[in-house]
């Protein structure tokens, strides 16, 4: 005697088949199968888990009053948290499958909360996201697409802020001579300006607490996602292992956020910081060379996680170097920052 199979059909016509054991409800079976159907109370009271039976016979478990109106019952609606199929059935949900994912991209309105230059080429842009309808989400390291107002041009920027700071979102943007966003920021953007954003996006992200030392290598505005990762670890009071942050730029005039990084040294006892310039300068007493240089041996173990972000040559060099020093490739996460004009 096989268990009934229930086909869950979503509004975007994707389908998933689940098997429902005799003592299970449809919702339970779906959750067990990794299908995170919307639900809340799991007891038939809130109505979040409602679906429509299109095929088959489905009964609801309890004979207490349930949160469905008579006309809904006439329309063959069921609460999946109480639903038990008698035979194979098909249940239709009124939302798309892609809405299930916690980090699915969504469109938001946002306003400029603050904007100022950190140096000749880097701008710090802070947005306030309009979360009136729904909440924004992201994992540290991810990016959002920002639309250049009055155009169809979208540009990707990583957040240097953390999710706890929402509805505030902060970006570090490198100004290009002819870039669409750069032109807008230089000439038009002002406080309270309205922008559209879309996200989150990106595969470069911190998903679990690291199990060993953390190596963060950032070049230029690649510091943004790396800082989001660092501050998330700080927020969690993650002290179990050392964090080695290497931040490099080409020349002194390109430096920024030295005070921010120095401040973090004050209250992150497991943080080690190394800032490097490629080109020497009389006012610079710090290290010279590349951000990838000087990662100490004790930072590199079988459980080390590395997060690298910056221009492609820096990222390539860093990946090669860390692989050569024994970090398993699966534990090296990287993202290359390419100016949009160069994206084909």
């Amino acid at each position: 005697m096989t268990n009934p199979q229930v086909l869950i059909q979503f509004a975007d016509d994707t389908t998933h088949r689940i098997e429902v054991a005799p003592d299970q409800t449809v919702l339970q079976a779906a959750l067990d199968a990794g299908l995170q159907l919307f639900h809340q109370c799991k007891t038939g009271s809130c109505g979040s888990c409602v679906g429509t039976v299109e095929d088959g016979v489905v009964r609801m478990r309890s004979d207490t009053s349930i949160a469905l109106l008579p006309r809904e019952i006439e329309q063959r609606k069921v609460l999946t948290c109480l639903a038990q199929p008698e035979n194979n059935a098909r249940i239709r949900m009124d939302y798309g499958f892609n809405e299930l994912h916690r980090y699915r991209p969504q469109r938001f309105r946002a306003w400029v909360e603050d904007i100022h230059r950190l140096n000749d080429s880097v701008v710090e842009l802070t947005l306030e996201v309009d979360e009136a309808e729904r909440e924004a989400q992201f994992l540290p390291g991810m990016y959002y697409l920002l639309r250049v107002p009055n155009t169809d041009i979208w540009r990707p920027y990583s957040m240097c802020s953390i999710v706890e700071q929402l509805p505030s979102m902060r970006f570090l943007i490198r100004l290009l001579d002819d870039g669409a966003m750069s032109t807008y920021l230089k000439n038009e953007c002002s406080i309270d300006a309205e922008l559209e954003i879309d996200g989150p996006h990106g595969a470069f992200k911190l998903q679990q607490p690291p199990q060993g030392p953390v190596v963060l290598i950032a070049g230029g505005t690649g510091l943004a996602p790396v800082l989001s990762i660092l501050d998330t670890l700080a927020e969690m009071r993650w002290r179990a292992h050392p964090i080695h942050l290497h931040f490099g730029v080409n020349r002194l005039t390109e430096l920024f956020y030295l005070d921010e990084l120095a401040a973090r040294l004050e209250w992150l006892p497991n943080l080690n910081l190394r800032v490097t310039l490629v080109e020497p300068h009389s006012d610079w007493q710090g290290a010279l060379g590349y951000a990838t240089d000087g990662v100490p041996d004790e930072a590199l173990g079988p459980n080390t996680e590395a997060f690298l972000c910056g221009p492609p040559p820096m990222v390539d060099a860093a990946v090669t170097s860390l692989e050569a020093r024994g970090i398993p490739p699966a534990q090296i996460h990287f993202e290359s920052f390419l100016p949009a004009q160069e994206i084909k």
Partner: protein
Amino acid sequence: MSTPDPTQSKVTPPAQGANATKSYQPYVDAKWGLKNHWYPALFSHELEEGAFGSTKICGEPILLRRENDQLYALEDRCCHRGVPLSKKPYCFKEGMVTCWYHGYTYGLNDGELKTILAAPDDPLIGNASIKTYPIVEKYSIIWVFVGDADYAPIPPLESDLPPQESKDYAYYSPNLTDDDAIVLGIRRKGESNWRLAVENGFDPGHVLIHWKSPLVYAHDLAVPLGFKPTSDEAVKAFEDADGPKGMMNMYPPDADGHSNYEPIFENTMLDVRASGGTPALGIRTSMWLPGVLKVENFPFPGITAHEMYVPIDDKSYEYWELLVKTAPTEAEREEFTDRYENYLRDAVFHDFNDDDLWARDSMQPFYENDVGFAEEKLCAMDAVIVAWRKLVARHARGIQTPPMELGLKRRR
């Protein structure tokens, strides 16, 4: 790699403005308090057997109960419609508390939903719960650990209290954790953010507000107009891994007579002077995470005054004032209790400390919207305060977020 010296910039004025606050940003974020720490909730005598009590710590409403000599602390908010259980808590059966509104009933020790009065077979039973808090009774006080539900291991209460001093110390003064100490005190509500209350407690310059206190005249105390740091050792930091974390003002001279602070008794430009009097021996102030003050040898040698500043919400705190004395025998306990009730309580907590209450409340408007931390203009006497802020930023076990019913607004 190098770790910055938390006691740096002792003799020069600390850095000012918005940039300075970056070096203790988590402290500026800690409007709602520090989480994953022990806090005092009630005096032991305030919770009788079979009674309920309630309080709010770091924005979390807490229900307390003593039943069969066991103590329990639970979230004072029914998970059904969010009402406070403490409005009219029912105990129909040992080990459980029932909400007055719809009869949701929770286990005292695990917070699990055990039954609903009129729906005993409801599927929600066993699938909903309210938060419970570790609770301990020591030193005449009931303490609650306020933090993440899954925080483990729970550190000992003593890691959030001042450490004991060696009995060989020349100016030894008891600690509330001493075995043979008697602890007597009061608590009352203050109308300012907890951080302002804390900073006032060990602030070397604030003693000016006490200069005309009746206590000063009654005992001819030499309370200076302020304390000026004079050496790199004026402030001592305590940062051992598992011990209490704190900052201490080294007011008394070292054993070799070397002085770290100079008490200032007069200002010639203004022609003003302190009432003078007998220099008090061995007075030292220290502040300990999460906000416990220790004033050794105050009001007299051999008595310690402790204060706690417990965040209620982002604009008020519970002000605890204690006097501690070594009293190994019953006779000594009676004698001190008598002196406390008939004299010391009013003389110290009111004639002296009342001025601290309104001083703290006066700072609140300036700091209410976080503007104050960027706009304040500190002086050389404030070095210990900046050092404290950095210590908190480094060592607090967590920064509390605003309560859920305010909506998920950002903390900063």
